[in-house]
């Protein structure tokens, strides 16, 4: 009789979300199949039906606490169609786009610095006890601070455009409900050079790792 052994990796850690992996081995302990399981189900698609339409951008962004802006903006665009806003004002479009860029920055930094860099810098086979952001803080504190400040930059942009760092209310059906003052803009402009420098530094880490391990 064929025996199937299954290796379960549960939960998946250091990723943006929840998941489970099962690896199915055959009689000779070779991998027959590997599966990724999405273990969560919440039902957003149904329970938003019947709610007041202006709640939708605020509800669906709670699908994810790392990328709420994406869902917030997608819902706002759907609501734009419902309220008949065929075209946004230039201000609204720019503020929404800036909100999204802020999220791209903080989410990518989170993935690269907080979650994945331990694998690149310490090695995939290194001791799991320290192969994490805490290990980075202990062994490479300047890099850790860079990652933290870059993520903060992105989060502050989201706060300036959406009202809160996580789960804001900035995009509404038809436009936005907050402007960006010149003073707020200048605060961000002041740090842009540093952020760009650090981002290019992060690219260098990734490039070096790739070339070293080709």
């Amino acid at each position: 009789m064929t025996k199937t052994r299954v290796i379960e990796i549960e939960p998946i850690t250091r990723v943006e979300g929840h998941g489970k992996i099962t690896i199915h081995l055959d009689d000779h302990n070779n991998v027959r199949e590997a599966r990724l399981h999405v273990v969560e189900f919440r039902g957003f698609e149904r329970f938003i039906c019947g709610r007041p339409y202006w709640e939708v951008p605020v509800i669906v962004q709670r699908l994810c606490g790392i990328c709420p802006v994406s869902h917030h903006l997608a819902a706002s665009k759907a609501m734009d169609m419902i309220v008949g806003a065929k075209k946004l004002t230039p201000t609204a479009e720019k503020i929404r786009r800036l909100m999204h860029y802020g999220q791209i920055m903080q989410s990518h930094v989170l993935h690269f610095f907080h979650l994945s860099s331990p694998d690149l810098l310490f090695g995939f086979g290194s001791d799991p006890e320290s192969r994490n952001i805490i290990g980075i803080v202990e062994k490479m504190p300047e890099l850790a601070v860079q990652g933290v400040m870059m993520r903060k930059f992105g989060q502050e942009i989201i706060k300036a455009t959406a009202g809160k760092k996580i789960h804001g209310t900035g995009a509404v059906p038809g436009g936005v409900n907050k402007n960006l003052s010149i003073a707020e803009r200048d605060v961000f402009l002041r740090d842009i050079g540093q952020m760009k420098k650090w981002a290019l530094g992060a690219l260098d880490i990734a490039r070096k790792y790739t070339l070293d391990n080709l």
Partner: protein
Amino acid sequence: MKKRISTISLAGCFGCHMSLLDIDERILELLKLVEFDRSPINDLKRFKARCDIGFIEGGCCNEENVHTLREFRKNCDVLVGIGQCAIMGGLPVMRNAIMHSNDPLRECLETAYLNSPYVYNPTNDIPNDPALPLILDKVYACAEVVKMDYHIPGCPPSGDTLWQAINALLNGNPSGLPNEVIRFD
């Protein structure tokens, strides 16, 4: 001596964990006071030792959430629920009662996998792999499953609020939080 803490996101969106990371550079200070046991930000997937404080984000939507929450209660001296999902079910709890529906969970599953305009599901199956944890009949708040010691309200509570609360807990003097930081939308 450093306190040992662990964190988990049950059926949460990870917003509360992200808010925890919003303490920004204070994470260096935090790591002088605590060491982490299992947490989504490291690769410890089971408890290594008894923990002083466990931070729970999210409510219970499936059986695996319940098992994990009970593990946390068994292994942590103090359990703190962060955010509305842990306190009262948060947003996922909206699937417990849908207006004009006698079977809200069935309708949620059918809408997601069968009936929506852009669903492509040639076998017309709702996912039922044995590896998937069973969905509970209702979404449960953490306090309905195990005894919880503290709650920090918010969706999510801000990084500053969490920093204030964590320091108070680590110093053994959990005080209330002022109204301005525990209002939520």
